[in-house]
């Protein structure tokens, strides 16, 4: 018999964890229980591993959901991801640039906080060059200014830049699929898993992707695909809306609207195929996504089903 202080071998722990995943989060078939019992009886240490793993599972399942989510998200807002922290750590050592952050006496917490936003959050920053930078929901950036250039790396999400015309250093924006360069301009860059959107409101930007650089002028929007292909587009919603805290759309299919709204809302927001093509028009305040859902239910023949706070379905009324 194993004694309680004997640690089960990692392989058995791994198996126990696979069982926990299947039994608690999956949809175990009728045979699953019998198979699980068989596994348990294979070796006394399997039981021990299961005891530890299921205790851990109970501990996690017993956490108050709302309190935990708020806390983890709150700390996320104050901190940033470890990878970013390590990078920032490196920047701290170099100690160059980052003037707007260095103004803070302690530096680090503010510095960590200002480069990332949580879902539903937006934030405004001022660069040491006088540029105005805004981060949209669930976004993260690194900033690096040197004597010869200004550089912003968009790690995830969406950012708007209003550069200070008095500063003559070129401004580069690095993204996964392309690098942008501007001398002066007001631009918006949005990075998703499969493409990149670049909108210019003032000045112009050069998008470097593939062999030939592409110029984007004031009033234009360019879509760049992951493979480097690109085309000018007319965006289905006002790309600048979020900088004013609104989502402004005209005749947008509900499915697209819901996908857009979901960027600002933690959890799952889905719409049934039956209502996917209903058209949505209007200007909505992003500060309260629940209210937007209520407005939808009033203006369209749909009903909103709240399965949990973080899982909402939109279906035909």
């Amino acid at each position, binding site marked *: 018999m194993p004694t309680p*202080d*004997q*640690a089960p071998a990692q392989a058995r*722990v*791994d198996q126990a*964890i*696979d069982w*926990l*995943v*299947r039994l608690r*989060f*999956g*949809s175990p078939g009728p045979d699953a229980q019998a198979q699980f019992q068989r596994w348990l009886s294979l070796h006394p240490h399997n039981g021990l591993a299961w005891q*530890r*793993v299921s205790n*851990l*599972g109970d*501990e*996690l*399942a017993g*956490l*108050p*959901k*709302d*309190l*935990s*989510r*708020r*806390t*983890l*998200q*709150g*700390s996320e*807002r*104050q*901190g940033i*991801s*470890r990878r970013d*922290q390590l990078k920032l*750590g490196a920047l*701290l*050592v170099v100690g160059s640039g980052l003037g707007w952050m260095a103004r803070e*006496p*302690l*530096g*680090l*917490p503010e510095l*960590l906080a200002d480069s990332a936003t949580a879902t539903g959050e937006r934030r405004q920053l001022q660069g040491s060059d006088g540029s105005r930078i805004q981060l949209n929901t669930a976004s993260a950036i690194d900033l690096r200014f040197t004597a010869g250039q200004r550089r912003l790396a968009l790690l995830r999400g969406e950012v708007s830049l209003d550069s200070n015309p008095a500063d003559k250093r070129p401004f580069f924006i690095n993204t996964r699929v392309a690098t942008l360069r501007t001398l002066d301009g007001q631009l918006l860059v949005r990075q998703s898993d499969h493409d990149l959107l670049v909108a210019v409101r003032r000045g112009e930007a050069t998008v470097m992707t593939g062999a030939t650089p592409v110029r984007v002028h004031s009033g234009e929007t360019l879509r760049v695909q992951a493979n480097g292909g690109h085309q000018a587009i007319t965006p289905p919603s006002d790309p600048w809306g979020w900088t004013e805290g609104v989502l402004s759309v005209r005749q947008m299919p509900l499915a697209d609207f819901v996908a857009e709204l979901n960027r600002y809302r933690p*959890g*799952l927001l*889905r719409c049934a195929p039956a209502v996917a093509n209903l058209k949505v028009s209007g200007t909505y305040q992003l500060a309260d996504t629940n209210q937007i859902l209520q407005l939808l239910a009033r203006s369209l023949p749909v009903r909103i089903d709240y399965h*949990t706070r*973080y*899982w909402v379905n939109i279906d035909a009324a």
Partner: protein
Amino acid sequence: MATMQLPDTLKPTEVALLYQSHHAWLRGWLRSRVGCSEHAADLAQDTFVRLLRARQTSPLKEPRAYLSSIARGLMIDQFRRRALERAYQDSLAHLPETDIPSEEHRLVILDSLERLDRALHQLKPRARQAFLHAQLDGLSIIQISLLLGVSKATVERDLAKALKTCYRLRYADA
């Protein structure tokens, strides 16, 4: 279980030597960053404790670079922990009176959340999201796979990975 001598750490005499040569420098380095000399002294102490346990056998080529990288990690851990504690207090303040857990339970929850937070930061973003959806949103594997646009098997792997990280943090010191 008997304590094992870990074969792959620096010898205590080497650490003592490093301490003599670099401790004062490290304290100064930390003081200029955290702005408080007591706090800097604590962190310098923790740095050498960490060094004793570090998996490193050969003599350090650039001891100051190595020490400062450990110290930087500690500073960041501490900021994370403080950020989490602050967020926890804020979140408690949002709860209705009747939902506030007892003092003891509050500490137990904070302890679990700290471990969870540390585990989450060791995961890739997708695994992290999957795990939060499963644990805190009550979503099933199928729902998560729809939400994240990946296969069920991928979600299962992500969840298992997250639980393994939690397990390591929960039982590593036991």
